[in-house]
C-alpha cells in the first residue's frame, strides 16, 4: 500500500499564535486514519492546511508524491482531495440536488457525474426524499449526510472529515460512522477523520494520532490506542 498523503514537519500560525508546531503524519492508500484530541489541539488546522484553506509557515505536504502546499484550494480539490467541513456548511438556499451538483464542480463528464449522483442517493436514501428541498431547512443529521454526499460527488481519492458527529443526534452518530466505514471500503477512498468523539473515531479507523496543543502526543494502531492507559485517561474519559 502506497502513501497517499505525507504531511511533514508542518508549522501553521494564526497571526502570531501557533496552531501546529512541527506535525508529521501519513495516510496510506485505502486507510482510515483518525485524529483525536481536545478542542484547539490543532486537528482542524491539519485539515485546513491540507486543503489549502490555510497557508503553512514551514514543512511540506505531499499528495500522491506531488507537493501540494501553497496550491490554491481549487487545484487541491481537482487533484482528488475532498473535505467535509466542520459545522456542516451546506449551501442553505440551494436544493439538495444543487448542493450535490456543486460537489462535482471540478468534474465535467456528465455521464460520470450522473453515476456518482446515483451512488450517493443509493447510499443516503434520505437525500432522495429531500431532493428538491432547500438544504437549510433539513435536520442536522440530514445536512451531515448531504455534506458527506457532496464531498463524494467530487470522486475523491482522499476524504477529509472534520467532526462529522458534532451536533448530530446520538442515534445518527452510529449511522454516520457506518457510512464512513462503507465509503472507505466500497469506494476505495482513503479517509482522514477528525473527531472529538474519540471512541467512535478509534473504532472505525485503522490508525490514529492523538494531538495536544499543536503537536502529536501519541500515535499507533487504533485498536492498541483504545486499550492504552494514557488514551483512556486523556481522550476517553476513563470509563470503557
Amino acid at each position: 500500500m502506497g502513501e497517499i498523503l505525507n504531511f511533514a514537519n508542518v508549522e501553521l500560525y494564526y497571526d502570531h499564535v501557533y496552531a501546529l508546531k512541527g506535525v508529521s503524519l501519513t495516510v496510506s492508500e485505502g486507510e482510515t486514519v483518525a485524529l483525536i484530541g481536545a478542542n484547539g489541539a490543532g486537528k482542524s488546522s491539519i485539515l485546513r492546511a491540507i486543503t489549502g484553506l490555510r497557508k503553512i509557515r514551514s514543512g511540506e505536504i505531499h499528495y500522491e508524491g506531488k507537493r501540494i502546499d501553497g496550491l490554491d484550494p481549487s487545484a487541491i480539490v481537482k487533484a482528488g482531495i475532498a473535505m467535509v467541513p466542520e459545522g456542516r456548511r451546506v449551501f442553505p438556499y440551494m436544493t439538495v440536488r444543487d448542493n450535490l451538483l456543486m460537489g462535482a464542480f471540478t468534474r465535467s463528464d456528465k455521464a460520470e457525474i450522473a453515476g456518482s449522483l446515483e451512488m450517493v442517493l443509493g447510499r443516503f436514501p434520505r437525500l432522495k426524499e429531500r431532493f428538491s428541498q432547500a438544504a437549510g431547512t433539513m435536520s442536522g443529521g440530514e445536512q451531515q449526510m448531504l455534506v458527506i454526499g457532496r464531498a463524494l460527488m467530487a470522486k475523491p481519492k482522499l476524504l477529509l472529515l472534520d467532526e462529522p458527529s458534532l451536533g448530530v443526534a446520538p442515534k445518527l452518530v452510529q449511522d454516520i460512522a457506518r457510512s464512513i466505514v462503507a465509503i472507505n471500503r466500497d469506494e476505495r477512498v482513503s479517509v482522514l477523520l477528525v473527531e472529538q468523539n474519540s471512541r467512535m473515531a478509534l473504532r472505525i479507523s485503522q490508525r490514529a494520532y492523538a494531538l495536544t496543543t499543536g503537536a502529536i502526543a501519541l500515535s499507533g494502531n487504533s485498536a492498541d490506542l483504545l486499550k492504552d492507559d494514557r488514551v483512556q485517561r486523556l481522550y476517553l474519559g476513563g470509563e470503557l
Partner: protein
Amino acid sequence: MEQVIVNGFYLGAQYALIALGLTLIFALMNVLNFAHGQMYVLGGFISYTIYGKLGLPFVVALISSGVTLAIVGALFERFLFRTVIKRSLREESTMLLAAATAFFLDAVILLLFGEKQRGVPKIVKGVYNDGNLIMPYDRMVVGILAIAFIAGFILYMKYSRPGRAMRALAQDRVAAQLMGVEVDRYTMIGFALGAMLAGIVGGLLVAITGINSGIGGPISIKAFLMVMIGGAGVVGGAIAGGFILGMLESVGLTVLREFGDVTYLVIFAALMVFLSIRPNGLMGKPWG
C-alpha cells in the same frame, strides 16, 4: 390609476435591474459599490455617443455599454478591490475604496463628456393611446428589454456554471472553495456582471430620459434604497425593492403633486420607519 401602475411598473423594471447589479456585488464581496450610479452614467454616455452621435443601431450602442462596463468592473475588481481586500484588516477600507472609485468615475465622465444634459433620437416613434392609457412605444420597448434582462440574469444565475459558482460563493465562501470554486475568478466575473447591468440600464434609459454627468450619485442612492427595502444580497429582494420603489415614485408623483416635490422626502421618512421595524429588509437573508 392604470396609468400610474403602468408607469410604476416600467420604472420598477429599470430600478430592479440596477439593484440586481448592486446586490450581486454585495453578496459576493461584501462591498457596497458606491460607484454603481456612475457606472450607469458611463453606460448612458457610451450609448449616447454610439447611437446618438455616430448614428449606429441602438442594439450596438447597448451592447457597447454593457461590454465596456463589464471590462471596467473586471479591472476595478482585479486591480483595486482584490488588492485592498487581500491586504486590509478593516472593512472600512473597501468602503473608502468604493467611494473613491465613484469620485474617480465622476471626474472621468465630466472630463470626457462634459456637463451638458444629452439626449438621443427616439428609438421607436409613436404613442400607444386607447383613451385612458398612454404609453409611448419607446418606453414599452425599453420596459420589455429590462424585463428580458432580469429574466436572463435569473436564468444565468440558476442554471449556468458560473451562476451556480457565484451563488455558492455568496452562501458559503469556505464551502464553495472546498468544492473547487476559484474565488478570485468568480468574484471578478461577478463584479463585471454587476457593473455590466448598471451600464445596460444607463444605455437603455438614455433613450428615454437622456443622460447627464451629475446623476450618478442620486442613482446610487436610489439603488441603495431598493436594496435596503428588499434585503441586501438577495436576488428576489433586489427585484422586489426595485418594483416597490418604482411604484412608490410613480404613485407619489401623482398623489403628492399638489404638495410640491416631496415624493422622496416621504419615501425616505417611510424607509426610516420601515427599517427600524425590519432592519434586514423584506427578505433579509444572504442569497436566494
